[in-house]
């Protein structure tokens, strides 16, 4: 226990020191100063508010568009995994399907069932949207692109993702429908339970980085896989999987999509919704995939870090090189996040839905004990590594090699799965 306490106090002392010089406020401030406008003038306040509104607008729209694109992507991927084609008629490869669907949903009648609590029923989708849009504040996109690098980033993210449960409960209760109510209560139970392993798993990178800021955690890692926190030690590796599973459960994604189990609950908490309000629920569901994947990428997979360029040297860059590498880091971050989003979709079409008791036993009997043990192990391991740094290198190398081995074996297994049935690889056919 004392090992953990030392490590935590060590981390806390460094939290105070981390600060990121590049935030949007400072950018606006710098621009204003360059024009000779002092921070104290009312014009500066106005510009600051306008800038914040602009950022909020961009962030919310990015979220909505990402969610829309995922809806298309998920259907295409799901279709191929089931040997189907999926939506492919609207635009190239059916890409504009999500726009067509959005337009359709916007034009539909907004029905409110008889006996529903009208105000709550109307407000519930906005609760969901707010909780979802707020997460984008502290999510990094690249080296400098982040709406606000909060000092309590990870904590804030955990808090606002749980806000979605308010919307779920409100929609389920106010619908005056037994299916909605069951769905929302399941969802609440699920989110509350899985908050614990998710939080404990996120504590591991927080311990390792010594900060709660998302950018700070990324900065504590490096560009190469062996510098990522996921390969830091076995407990961190376990923490990554625990976080991933818990985030799936919190986002009501398959195989934990009990709140919207079609065979039992029609569509769960959004059964009674139609039109635009219905589309908000789906926006949140798909957008959440980005949120959880981006957070996992940031805290476990090295975020936007470019291999061979450490964060301090990145900060020092100026001019074209800085902008170019900024874009590369953005692309790398997006690539890592998209791979995780793909894994989420892939899991959905692989695993059957869990029963409620299985869901609870997975959480309380498997994830919670392991996540607590993992946090303790990491605290101890940090002390061991401080005494013998060579062990750190050995462990990271071994785990990265293990990861590479697993991926190779998996690819070989998949290839043989294709060939064993006399088929061949064909990605381009039948689009």
């Amino acid at each position: 226990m004392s090992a953990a306490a030392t490590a935590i106090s060590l981390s806390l002392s460094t939290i105070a020191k981390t600060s990121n010089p590049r935030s949007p406020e400072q950018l606006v401030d710098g621009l204003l100063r360059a024009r000779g406008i002092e921070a104290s003038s009312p014009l500066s306040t106005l510009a600051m508010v306008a800038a914040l509104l602009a950022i909020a607008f961009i962030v919310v729209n990015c979220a909505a568009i990402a969610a829309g694109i995922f809806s298309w992507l998920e259907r295409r991927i799901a279709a191929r995994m089931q040997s189907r084609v999926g939506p492919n008629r609207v635009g190239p490869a059916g890409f504009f399907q999500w726009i067509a669907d959005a337009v359709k949903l916007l034009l539909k009648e907004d029905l409110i069932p008889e006996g529903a609590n009208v105000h709550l029923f109307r407000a519930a989708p906005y609760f969901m949207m707010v909780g979802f849009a707020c997460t984008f504040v502290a999510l990094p996109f690249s080296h400098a692109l982040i709406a606000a690098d909060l000092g309590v980033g990870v904590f804030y993210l955990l808090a606002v993702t749980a806000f979605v449960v308010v919307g779920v409960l409100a929609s389920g209760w106010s619908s005056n429908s037994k299916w909605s109510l069951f769905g929302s209560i399941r969802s609440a139970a699920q989110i509350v339970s899985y908050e614990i392993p998710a939080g404990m798993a996120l504590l591991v990178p927080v311990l390792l980085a010594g900060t709660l800021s998302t950018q700070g955690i990324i900065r504590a890692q490096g560009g190469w896989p062996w510098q990522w926190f996921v390969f830091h030690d076995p407990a961190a590796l376990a923490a990554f999987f625990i976080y991933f599973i818990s985030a799936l459960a919190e986002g009501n994604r398959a195989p934990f999509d009990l709140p919207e189990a079609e065979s039992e609950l029609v569509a769960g908490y959004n059964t009674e919704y139609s039109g635009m309000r219905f589309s908000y629920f789906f926006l949140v569901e798909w957008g959440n995939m980005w949120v959880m994947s981006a957070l996992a990428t940031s805290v476990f997979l090295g975020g936007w870090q470019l291999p061979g360029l450490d964060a301090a040297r990145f900060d020092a860059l100026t001019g074209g090189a800085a902008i170019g590498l900024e874009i590369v880091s953005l692309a790398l971050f997006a690539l890592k996040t998209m791979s995780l989003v793909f894994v989420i979709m892939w899991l959905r079409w692989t695993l059957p839905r869990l029963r409620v008791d299985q869901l609870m036993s997975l959480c309380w009997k498997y994830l919670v004990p392991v996540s607590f043990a993992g946090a303790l192990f990491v605290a101890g391991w940090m002390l061991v590594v401080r005494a013998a740094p060579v062990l750190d290198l050995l462990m990271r190398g071994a785990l990265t090699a293990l990861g590479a081995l697993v991926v190779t074996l998996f690819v070989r297994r998949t290839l043989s799965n294709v060939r064993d049935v006399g088929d061949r690889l064909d990605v381009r056919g039948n689009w």
Partner: protein
Amino acid sequence: MSEPTQKSLGGWARDVSESARSLWEGMSVTLSYMFKKPITTQYPDRMPLPVVHTLPTRYRGFLEVDMDTCTACQACERACPIDVINIDLIRGDGVTTPKTAMERFDIDIGKCMFCGLCVEPCPTGSIQHTREFEGAAMAFDNLTLRFVPDPAKPYPAYKPPKGADAYPRKPLGEIVRKLIREWDAPAPAFPQRDGQTPRPGPAEVSHVPR
């Protein structure tokens, strides 16, 4: 099916390893499907061959009658087990009007079961199955193929030449393709009852601007 509440550490570890193994296998299978070609046939427009060319040789599509070689013998009408074919004859004097003519030759494709019994007895091969099978109608009534378009202009019966064993026939499908094109027409109004204004047919309703 109640699981034991207490589990040994070995059982716990076995659960974890079994889940990992089934995940491994399951995800590998789904991924392998993703990299295979979907079996979907993208009918009708994205196919290696038009569907008509992939049909079996004796495919039984919509019926077609070549009125120029129909003898008005009504063998097909009698052969049909479910009264799909309707032929109305008028008799003439043989001098100013033909001796036998057809006022009506209707085949209700909505009712036809494509059994082919009507094709068998036809002496001239006038009634035939085409290879056409695609069509969408705005109303059920439109599905009736009317081979005599205008009852005021009856078709004279064909007199096969003596000893002939082959009869001239228009290329199969040409006539029926023209008739199918008319299926898109709006439905006729519902029959009028006394003292009521005629109601529009279902197809027209969908075009009424709000």
